[in-house]
C-alpha cells in the first residue's frame, strides 16, 4: 500500500442475491484513493460504480453483501469493524453526496436539524447553540444565507440542496467525501458552479473526493486521477492527463471517442459495438472481449491482470501483458 493513500480497497467483491442467481456487481476490485486528490470513477450505468461507492461505507442492505475484500481506510480495515462501530465512521470520517438532491434530504426536517443532528450524533458534548453556529458558518461558506437554515428541503433549489449535502459531509470534517453522480440532476450552469465549489473545498479543507460519474467531461474538468470501470471490474486507473492523452484500455479508448463534440461531423461520433455484458453470466476471459476491436484468441480464455503499464497507470488488458503470457507459455 502506498503511504500517500487514504483508502485502499483490496480485492473487493460485492454480490447481489437475486432470484435468478448471484450477481457480482463489484468483482475483485482493488483501488487506491490518495490523500487530497479528486479521483473520478467513470463507467457505464450498471457497471458497479455506485455499488463500489456504497461499499466503501459499508452501506449495503438487503440483497447486497460484501463477499470478500479489505477496506483499508486511514490505517484500519473497515471490514473488521462491527455494525455498531460503523456509524461512528460514517459522516465523521467518510461523507457521501447522493445523486438526487431532491430526495436525499428528509422532507419533514429543517435544514438546520439535518446539520445539528449530524454534529451532535458524533459529538454529543456539543451544545445546540454551538452546533447551530457551526452550521451557520459552514453553509455561509457554501453560499447559502444563514436564515435559510430554518427552511425545509422543498423550499430550496436543487443546487442549494446539493450544497446542503456537502455541508453535511463537511460538518464533521470528513476526510473522504464520496460523491455519487452529484451533478446528474443539475443543469449545466449549476453543475459548473458546483464543480468549482467542490474544487475550492478540496483545496481549502484538504478533502479527498471520490467522484462517481458517467460524465467524462466532469472528470476531465475536476479530477486528478481517473478510474474506469467496466462490467464490475477495474479497466484502467491513471493520472487524468495520461489517461485522456493516451488511453491504454480499448474500452477507455472507445469511451473517449464516443464523447459528443460540436466539431464532429454528423455520423462521425464513435459508437461502441455491442452492449455491456449480463453480470449474471459474465464473459469468460477478458470481460470486454466480445466488444473489443483488438481482440486476440487468448482474451477469450484468460482473464487479464490489473497491472501497471507506465508509472502509476494501471490497465487490465492482455494487449500489454502478452509478453508475460508468452514467457509463461515458454516455461510451461
Amino acid at each position: 500500500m502506498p503511504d500517500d493513500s487514504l483508502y485502499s480497497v483490496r480485492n473487493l467483491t460485492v454480490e447481489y442475491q437475486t432470484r435468478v442467481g448471484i450477481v457480482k456487481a463489484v468483482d475483485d476490485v482493488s483501488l487506491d484513493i490518495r490523500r487530497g486528490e479528486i479521483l473520478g470513477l467513470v463507467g457505464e450505468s450498471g457497471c458497479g460504480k455506485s455499488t463500489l461507492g456504497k461499499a466503501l461505507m459499508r452501506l449495503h442492505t438487503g440483497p447486497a453483501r460484501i463477499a470478500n475484500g479489505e477496506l483499508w481506510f486511514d490505517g484500519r480495515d473497515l471490514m473488521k469493524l462491527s455494525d455498531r462501530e460503523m456509524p461512528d465512521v460514517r459522516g465523521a470520517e467518510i461523507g457521501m453526496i447522493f445523486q438526487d438532491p431532491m430526495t436525499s434530504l428528509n422532507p419533514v426536517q429543517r435544514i438546520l436539524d439535518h446539520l445539528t443532528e449530524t454534529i451532535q450524533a458524533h459529538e454529543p458534548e456539543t451544545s445546540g447553540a454551538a452546533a447551530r453556529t457551526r452550521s451557520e458558518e459552514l453553509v455561509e461558506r457554501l453560499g447559502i444565507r444563514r436564515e435559510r437554515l430554518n427552511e425545509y428541503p422543498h423550499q430550496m433549489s436543487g443546487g442549494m440542496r446539493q450544497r446542503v449535502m456537502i455541508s453535511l459531509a463537511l460538518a464533521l470534517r470528513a476526510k473522504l467525501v464520496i460523491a455519487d453522480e452529484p451533478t446528474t440532476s443539475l443543469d449545466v450552469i449549476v453543475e459548473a458552479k458546483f464543480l468549482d465549489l467542490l474544487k475550492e473545498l478540496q483545496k481549502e479543507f484538504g478533502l479527498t473526493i471520490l467522484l462517481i460519474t458517467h460524465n467524462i467531461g466532469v472528470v476531465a474538468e475536476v479530477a486528478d486521477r481517473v478510474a474506469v470501470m467496466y462490467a464490475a471490474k477495474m479497466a484502467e486507473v491513471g493520472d487524468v492527463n495520461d489517461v485522456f492523452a493516451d488511453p491504454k484500455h480499448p474500452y477507455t479508448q472507445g469511451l473517449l471517442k464516443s464523447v459528443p463534440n460540436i466539431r464532429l461531423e454528423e455520423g462521425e461520433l464513435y459508437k461502441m459495438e455491442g452492449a455491456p455484458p449480463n453480470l449474471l453470466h459474465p464473459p469468460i476471459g477478458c470481460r470486454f472481449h466480445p466488444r473489443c476491436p483488438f481482440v486476440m484468441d487468448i482474451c477469450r480464455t484468460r482473464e487479464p491482470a490489473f497491472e501497471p503499464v507506465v508509472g502509476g497507470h494501471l490497465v487490465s488488458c492482455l494487449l500489454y501483458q502478452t509478453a508475460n503470457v508468452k514467457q509463461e507459455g515458454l516455461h510451461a
Partner: protein
Amino acid sequence: MARRWYGADWWFVTISAVMVLGFIIVAMFPGLFAPHSPDDLVGPRFLAPGAHPDLPALILPSDSPDNELIDLAVPSDQPRPIVAVVQGVPTSGALNEQAQVIDNQIKNEPGGLRLRPRIERYATLEEALQAVVNGKATAAVVQSLEFEAISAQFPTLREGASITGERSTAGGFFLGTNDIGQDVLSRLLWGTRIALIIGFSSSLVALFLGVPLGLFAGFVGGSLDRSLSLVMDSLYAFPGLILAIAITAVLGPSMLNIIVAIAVLYIPTYYRIVRGQTLSVKEEVYVEAAKSIGARNLEILQKYIFPNVIPSVAIIFSVNVADAILTGAGLSFLGLGLPPTIADWGIDLARGQRFIQTAWWMITFPGLAIMLVVLAFSMMGEGLTEIFNPKLRER
C-alpha cells in the same frame, strides 16, 4: 366517477369537522343539552315526538283569570271552590293529593288563603264540563287529551295548566319517550358520550399497538416481519363484528372489554398501512443519506421514517373512529356490550326494535345518530385523505 362526485373540497372537510366538533362537545357536556336525566322515568310511556303528554288538566271558563290550581285558593272564610271531575277515573285522587300539597304550602303564609276544593263527581266528561259552563263548578279537572278531543263543543271553556303546574299543552319530549317513560332525546345526547369514548379509546389503543408493530416489522423485515404479518393478516381475515363478538363473549360485557375487543379488531389496519409505508420510506434516498452521516437505526426510525409515515395514520384514525363506533353499537345491539341500564345508542336501538310498529321514534333516532356520527368521521377522514394525498386529486 364516484371520486369526482365527492371530490373533497375545503367545505367538505369543514362541514364534517364542524359535525365532529359538535359531537365531541355534546359528548363532553351532555348535561348542558339534555332536558332530562337519561335514566329517570320522566314522562308517560311511548309518547310520540312532540306530542302533548296526557296529564290531568284544569279546565276553566274562557273569561276566568285563573290558570293554575293554586289560583283557585281562597281565604278560609269564603266558600270552597267546586271542582268537577269524572267518576271512576284516577283524576280525583291525583287532584286531592296535589291540592293537599299546595294547601300545606300556603296555609302558613300571610293572607290566610286555603286550597280545599270540593270535588263533585259527574257520570260523564260532558256533564262535568257542562257544570263549569253553567257556573255550578269553578273548574273541572280532566285528562288534557280527552278535553282536546271534544273542546269544540265547549267554546266557552279553555284548558289551563295541569294540576301539577306544568303546561299540559307543552310538548315536553322533542323526540318522544321510550317504553318505560325515559326521554329519547336525553338518552341520545348522553349516548354520544359512550359512543365517542368507545370509538376514540379503542382506535387509540389500536393505534398505539399497531403503529409501533408496523414500524418495527417494516424496518427490521425478515422473519419478524413475516410472522407478525401472518398474525395480522389472519386477524384481518376475520369478519370484524364476528371477531369482536367472540372476544366480548369471552371477556364478558363491560366498557373496557368492548374497547379491548374493538382495538384488537383494528390493530391490523394500522399495522398494514404503517408497515407498507415504512417499507417504501426506508428505501428513500434520504434514509440512506441519514445512514451515510452516521445515523443509527433507532434515530432513523424516530426522525426519518416515523414523521414521514404519520400523516397517513392520522387519516385512517378518523375513518377508524367511525368504524369503531359502528362496531361498538353493533355489539350493544346484540346485547354483548354494556349493561342495559346505560344510555347507549346500540342498546336503545335493540330496545326500539321490539316496538318498531308502535313507537317508530325509539329506533329511528338512535339509528340516525349513529349514521350521522359515522358519516361525520368518515367524511372527515376521506376529505383529509384527498387533501393530503395529491395523487388522488382530480386532474
